[in-house]
């Protein structure tokens, strides 16, 4: 019976979405098709604001102000369809409409709301005021100033977090590319069981990250983890190594960021490997023949032929990898123990998460998120610009 209930809920949800899309398409169809009829404006202004009022009734009690607002919005939309769109490209726009409305609801609205929040002060002490009156105190740029002057957590400052994030990103991406490149070079040779190796190497990437990270976290456990057991055995077998300080380490409490880095490197190598392998396989073997005759050694071929020729695939992959690593909250959140764990491993986004959902500083977090976004935007544009320049010279 439980199963039936769940199925019923899923089907109901699907029907609801279908109805929503249908209503949306109907709404746009009306505006496209009848924009030049005499009754276009009266019918639109009579029907749609009332419909919107009915749909929004469960969210807030219908009021005259709401109705006026919907009326104004509909007037603007109808005018745009009558004098600007004028029924052109009906089919393409109708087909695009669900995607655009979905994007607007899921991306544009939250982004605009976040932007709005970052100039106000929504936190634990003002949230009841917001609920009761619908107003939040406007504070201007205060939140942005706070981002750079106060700590999002209890002790670490923004600047320390930024440095840590840059170090984390650089280390990860560096070893992703290095490891991926080395493995791709190995796999690009004609070796036996190549398909098996490739499959095995891609598994960490194919596994859900939560499962992979939690499994790896277990391996770093202080007494029962694989890593410490091996280190302990090595120290016992080679006493001179033990003298040098090799031995079990409290990974999760003493070296949380290092642990996160090791785990994330392991997780990220397969992606780079696949991308670089694709690049390597697209290089014509005649370049290597020509280089052989020209007298290039293995490393010269790597340096003068392989690297320049995989650059076009490597650059976008590095850009993506940088953004993903910079924004990677999963690994840190899952390894260091959820809210209230250590702060030693926090990078910008995980600190941001804690500021919002552990310390309930919503407006501050909104400003913080916009700063992080600006940083990433800058980094990506720089990368892509460099990539374009590289493409020009080819």
């Amino acid at each position, binding site marked *: 019976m439980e199963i039936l209930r769940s199925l019923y809920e899923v089907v109901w949800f699907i029907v609801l979405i279908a109805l929503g899309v249908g209503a949306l398409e109907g709404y746009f169809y009306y505006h496209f098709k009848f924009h030049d009829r005499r009754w276009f404006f009266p019918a639109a202004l009579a029907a749609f604001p009332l419909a919107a009022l009915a749909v929004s009734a469960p969210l807030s009690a219908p009021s005259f102000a709401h109705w006026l607002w919907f009326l104004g919005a509909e007037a603007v939309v109808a005018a745009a369809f009558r004098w600007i769109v004028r029924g052109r490209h009906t089919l393409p726009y109708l087909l695009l409409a669900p995607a655009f409305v979905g994007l607007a609801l899921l991306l544009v609205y939250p982004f605009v709301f976040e932007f709005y929040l970052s100039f106000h002060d929504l936190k634990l002490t003002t949230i009841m005021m917001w609920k009761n009156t619908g107003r939040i105190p406007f504070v201007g740029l205060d939140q942005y100033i706070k981002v750079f002057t106060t700590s999002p957590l209890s002790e670490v400052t923004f600047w320390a977090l930024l440095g840590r994030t840059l170090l984390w990103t650089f280390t990860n991406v560096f070893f992703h590319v290095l490891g991926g490149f080395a493995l791709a070079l190995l796999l690009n040779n004609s070796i036996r069981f190549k398909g098996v190796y490739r499959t095995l190497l891609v598994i960490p990437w194919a596994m859900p990250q939560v499962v992979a990270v939690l499994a790896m976290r277990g391996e770093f456990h202080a007494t029962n983890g694989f890593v410490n057991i091996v280190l302990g055995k090595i120290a016992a077998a080679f006493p001179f190594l033990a003298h040098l300080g090799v031995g079990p380490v409290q990974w999760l409490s003493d070296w949380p960021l290092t642990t996160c880095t090791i785990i994330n490197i392991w997780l990220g190598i397969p992606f780079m490997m696949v991308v670089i392998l694709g690049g390597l396989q697209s290089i014509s073997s005649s370049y290597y*023949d020509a280089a*052989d005759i020209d007298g290039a050694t293995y490393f010269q071929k790597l340096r003068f032929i392989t690297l320049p020729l995989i650059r076009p695939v490597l650059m976008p992959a590095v850009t993506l990898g940088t953004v993903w690593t910079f924004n990677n909250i999963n690994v840190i959140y899952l390894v260091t123990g959820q809210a209230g764990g250590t702060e030693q491993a926090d990078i910008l986004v995980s600190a941001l998460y804690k500021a919002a959902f552990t310390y309930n500083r919503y407006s501050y977090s909104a400003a913080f998120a916009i700063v992080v976004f600006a940083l990433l935007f800058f980094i990506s544009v720089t990368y892509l610009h460099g990539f374009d320049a590289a493409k020009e010279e080819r």
Partner: protein
Amino acid sequence: MASVQFKGIIKKFKDNTVLNGVDVDIKDHEFVVIVGPSGCGKTTLLRMLAGLEDVTGGDILIDGLRVNDLHPSKRQIAMVFQDYALYPHMTVEENMSFALRLRKTDKGEIDARVSEAASILQLQKFLKRMPKQLSGGQRQRVAIGRAIVRKPKVFLFDEPLSNLDAKLREEMRVEIAKLYQRLNATIIYVTHDQVEAMTLAGRIVIMNKGIVQQVGSPIEVYRKPANLFVAGFIGSPTMNFMHGRLSLEGEKLVFSNADIKLTVPPYLLSDQKKHDGREVTLGVRPDDVLVGRDGQDCSDKVDGVLEVCELLGHRENLYINVGGMRLLATVEAFFNRSPGSAVQLCFNYRNMHVFDKATEKRISD
């Protein structure tokens, strides 16, 4: 400059024998073209000489030195590839000087050699360009320039013109012929195009199925093909073949099959009695099938039906049915007859070839 010798070269890819005992001597300053249909092993032979493929059996000698196990760069050869293999991220100049830079050659020396090669190939204007900014013919010239700059003992060309369009191919063919006169180097050139082979070569090596069929000057292989394969491969349009049996009728040796009966003159097959009863294949080039006015005063006329005429401009290809055989005759334009009309033809016996049907070897003189 150097001589090259292949001695009993064998190449196998696993169980698949690609080359089966290739013996060729190439002299100093010689332009040798290796020609054959695709899959005959000609490119493999060239790549083995370059050191890009291992030698399964036999020896390769450059200037008397056995090079089987020598690294490609140590063999003092330069190769021009079918797809040019210009490094796409280097300028023309960098491409041409790459080998010298790897060898840490003196900068002035590099510049001198690059500009010399560029002036030979008229590439001075393009030195700073990227390969993708060049046309196919220009890229080909850069690839040749890259070879010249290294001053190798032997130049290897691997189907260098096959990626160019027909007109450009003709131009580059002349360029390469001029280049050979100027460099006076040992050149080994692989192609599947028998026109390139005939026009460029000092000597032609014709290969099929991993075996050398004939080695000789273009005129030798054209006039005296050693076997049926060479006869069919060299020359365009292709030679006509007629299968039949030789028999002695009185003093005369007669070739006959179901459709045709010809007297074989003694200058074609001396010692005529020996050939009585032999199964043979007669080969006649389309130019030597005489039709209309050309064939007025020959004996042994054959009746046929004109099937198709192809006008080429100054010449015309006539496809003529003689019984069950189709013969191609190439005559002066215009042969003013409509398809379906009866024509009489005869053969120029002086240029006729006789091959044994079983061994496919040439038996005429």
